């Protein structure tokens, strides 16, 4: 059985350097920036950066045929593929660096520690203690023999980043380096501006650098499911673009929507920054033939990957405060701290989720299956969907197994969002085209989080920062406590009977 990326060809491979477009019937050549086929007769020429001895050729060697693509854990992978992780010190960045490193990728990365700084600014801390980067690198080398090429750098320092890109010539770039918090972007004008400057302008500058220095690289850019919002019509959330058979009818007339970007309805200034990124990436693929996956990622939860669990010095961060904690991670900490789980509003909001370990597998699959030049592709990276109140019930149940008595509270919603809505998420590409099958059950990962956080030192780290848990940042810009609407015990309440749909077929 050949694997999911076996039939991809040089045209997908970042080692293939575009050399021109020949219409050899007229022994002619056209301007070399045209990477589209010139009709029937046009022939694209590439040179392989890894096999220059082949000369110039058409990009048709399959990954399976190419000796540079070798068997890996999830399919074929490019030998010693150079992957640069922007935001390598973060929750996801660090876990991915270790995983890629262990799988034989050549990992480089940058970070400016803004995450550490902003968390400190808010008086919070990561519950799972993390080492300083120098110590992390040392541990990675000691335990796994890994040698990461890491620099402290802000993605917006374009001169420095240009030099680093030129030195490394990454074949894939994973772009995590953004400020990932909705509440943080709603604190006040300064914070909103900081988030959009960091995220949107940082990404825009990066795109220009890629164009000039590594135009063949595959950019894996992180978006979020929050870009789409939750349309009240229940219209499916397609993977970025409408499918070929989607139509719009109006006053008896009908149009195809196939291939158009679907509407976005972001839910905070942070999410707006991601939507702006989406358009900037989309346009640069169009103007400059860059290639990118825009990963609309669900809410990540959990602590476990094989590598981060290997040694305390390799652990990745884990935040639970109102700004940087994501919902499942927060709930588990609340359960341990004896704080009733804080459901915002009705708790009927439906979200897409994916466990850390599964998300990392998806990233590897995306890295090893690059889009074609000029292709802007979107994947919805979600392995399950849940209502917040159901999530609270699950956590209470798992907490009980750990001997905890967990309560649930509904608090005034600090956000402006629809609280009761349909939701249908389409996530076909990862399971159907990229060979991904989620392996981490929600209960299992939640259980692992409990086990880790219930170590006494970690429990005391939660308690120390318990005051950062209750939401105070309102979307109005006010700073105000959210009043408690009701408190109840798990299993006591019946919830609305609408449910989300995850469409993977």
């Amino acid at each position: 059985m050949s694997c999911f990326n076996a039939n991809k060809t040089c045209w997908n491979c970042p080692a293939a350097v575009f050399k021109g477009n020949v219409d050899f019937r007229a022994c002619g050549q056209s301007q070399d920036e045209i990477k589209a086929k010139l009709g029937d007769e046009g022939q694209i020429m590439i040179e392989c950066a890894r096999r220059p001895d082949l000369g110039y050729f058409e990009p048709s060697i399959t990954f399976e045929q190419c000796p540079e693509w070798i068997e890996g854990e999830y399919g074929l992978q490019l030998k010693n593929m150079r992957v640069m992780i922007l935001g390598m010190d973060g929750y996801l960045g660090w876990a991915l660096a270790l995983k890629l490193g262990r799988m034989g990728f050549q990992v480089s990365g940058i970070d400016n520690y803004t995450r550490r700084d902003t968390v400190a600014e808010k008086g919070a801390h990561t519950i799972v203690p993390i080492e300083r980067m120098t110590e992390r690198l040392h541990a990675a080398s000691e335990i796994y023999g890994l040698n990461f090429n890491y620099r402290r750098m802000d993605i917006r320092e374009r001169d420095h980043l240009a030099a680093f890109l030129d030195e490394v010539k990454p074949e894939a770039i994973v772009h995590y380096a953004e400020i990932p918090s909705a509440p943080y972007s709603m604190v006040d004008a300064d914070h909103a501006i900081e988030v959009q400057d960091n995220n949107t302008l940082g990404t825009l500058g990066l795109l220009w650098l890629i164009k000039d220095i590594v135009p063949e690289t595959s950019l894996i850019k992180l978006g979020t499911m929050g870009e789409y919002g939750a349309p009240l019509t229940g219209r499916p959330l397609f993977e970025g673009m409408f499918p070929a058979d989607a139509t719009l009818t109006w006053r008896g007339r009908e149009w195809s929507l196939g291939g158009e970007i679907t509407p976005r309805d972001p839910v905070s200034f942070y999410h707006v920054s991601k939507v702006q990124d989406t358009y900037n990436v989309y346009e640069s693929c169009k103007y400059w033939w860059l290639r990118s996956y825009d990963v609309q990622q669900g809410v990540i939860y959990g602590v476990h990957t094989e590598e981060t669990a290997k040694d305390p010095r390799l652990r990745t961060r884990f935040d639970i405060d109102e700004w940087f904690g994501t919902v499942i991670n927060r709930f588990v900490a609340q359960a341990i701290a004896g704080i009733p789980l804080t459901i915002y509003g009705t708790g009927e909001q439906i979200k897409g989720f994916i466990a850390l370990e599964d998300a990392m597998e998806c990233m590897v699959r995306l890295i090893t299956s690059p889009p074609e030049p000029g292709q802007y592709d979107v994947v919805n990276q979600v392995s399950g969907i849940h209502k917040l109140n159901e999530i609270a019930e699950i956590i209470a149940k798992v907490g009980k197994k750990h001997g905890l008595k967990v309560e649930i509270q509904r608090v005034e919603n600090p956000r402006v969002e629809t609280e009761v809505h349909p939701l249908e998420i389409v996530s076909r590409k990862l399971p159907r085209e990229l060979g991904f099958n989620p392996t981490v059950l929600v209960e299992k990962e939640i259980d692992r989080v409990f086990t880790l956080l219930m170590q006494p030192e970690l429990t005391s780290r939660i308690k120390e920062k318990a005051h950062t848990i209750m939401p105070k940042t309102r979307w109005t810009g006010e700073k105000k406590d959210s009043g408690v609407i009701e408190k109840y015990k798990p299993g006591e309440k019946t919830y609305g009977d609408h449910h989300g749909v995850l469409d993977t077929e």
Partner: protein
Amino acid sequence: MKKRVIRVGIDGASFTRLQTMADEGVMPFLGRLRQAGTLRRLMASIPDNSAVSWSSIMTGKNPGEHGIFGFTDLIPGTYTMRFPNFRNLKAAPFWRLEPEKRHVVINLPFSYPADGISGRMVSGFISPNLENAASPPEFLEYLKARHYRIDADTRKIYQSRALFYEDLMAVHEIRCRVYREQFSSGDWDTFMIVFTGSDRIGHYLLDAWEDPGDPDHERFLEYFRAVDRELAWIMEHAGADDIVVMMSDHGMERVKKEVNLNYLLETGGFLSLADTGKRGYTAIADGTKAFVLEPSRVHLNYTGRYPGGTVTAGDRQALLEELKALFRGLTCEGEPVIREMFPREELYSGPALEEAPDLLLVPHTGYSLRGTLARDELFTEPDTLVGMHRGDDAFLYVHGREHAGAVPEHPRVEDIQSIVEKIL
């Protein structure tokens, strides 16, 4: 005084048409020049492809020795199409034969990437970029400063002929400025300049040449008038003792029909393609016995050489006979299409023979033989490309009547180098 050598190429210029233009006053200088030397019809390489012919011209060798059989071949062990370039040339070009001399080579097709040369060179088509087409680095800087371009943008033809022509002339003018400066520098022992707009204009505007009422007729003439002026300039500035040789790599004639040879093989049961959506060589499926590479190179699908090979050395003779019968029987509206067929041994000799196509086809007038796999019909009407190469109508001019004896009665492209050597 030492004897210098000047080589002037006019890509795709046909012997017959040059004569007509000389007779009719479009190329008055050429009209006078032919009195002062030997003008002959020249046989292009088979196939009559620029890469092959220019490789023969610059090395004086046949394809069995220099190893270039077309703009494309397949990467050994795969069906992936490759574009051989100068690095794949297996014989030495003239400037390597005389490394002690200074050579200037401008716009020689199929010399990309540029060779480290004693002197200066800039390659002609196909050169994906100027950076690797020029040598030495100072010469690259010089070319950049003059906004030198290797070729006109052929994409423009799909927008308008006028736009394309304008671009073609712009490229021609810059090229002329550069070669004249280089020529005048006197810093060379051999000088080569190739005009290539002639090939482009032949492919795209040949119908306008044939029809004086065509709005582009004047454009066609104007280009050749411009070339004639350059010939005059060169001869005016050449020294009396200089050896001057002019040539084209093939002739040019109107396309009557494009003939899709792979379709013939497919319907004849020799070729089968998998239904992968991409109709390229990589779709070649089990059971395939032969396929054609552009333009008219028939390859047998050998075991050991190709991933899906089925043909063994023992099958070769019988299979070639079957294929010849198929091609011999090919007619279009009652006319035969194929004029001649050559097993490779009849055309080529040398160490690269094994890589050569097994059978080479030469068409009757107007049948443009095609190796595309994208077509699912046998004959296609010509579209934008109205002109096609013709092998037996290239030209050779050797200046100086006293050198007539050095020119064979029926010269071929690979003879040019030895003609020069003989005169020297």
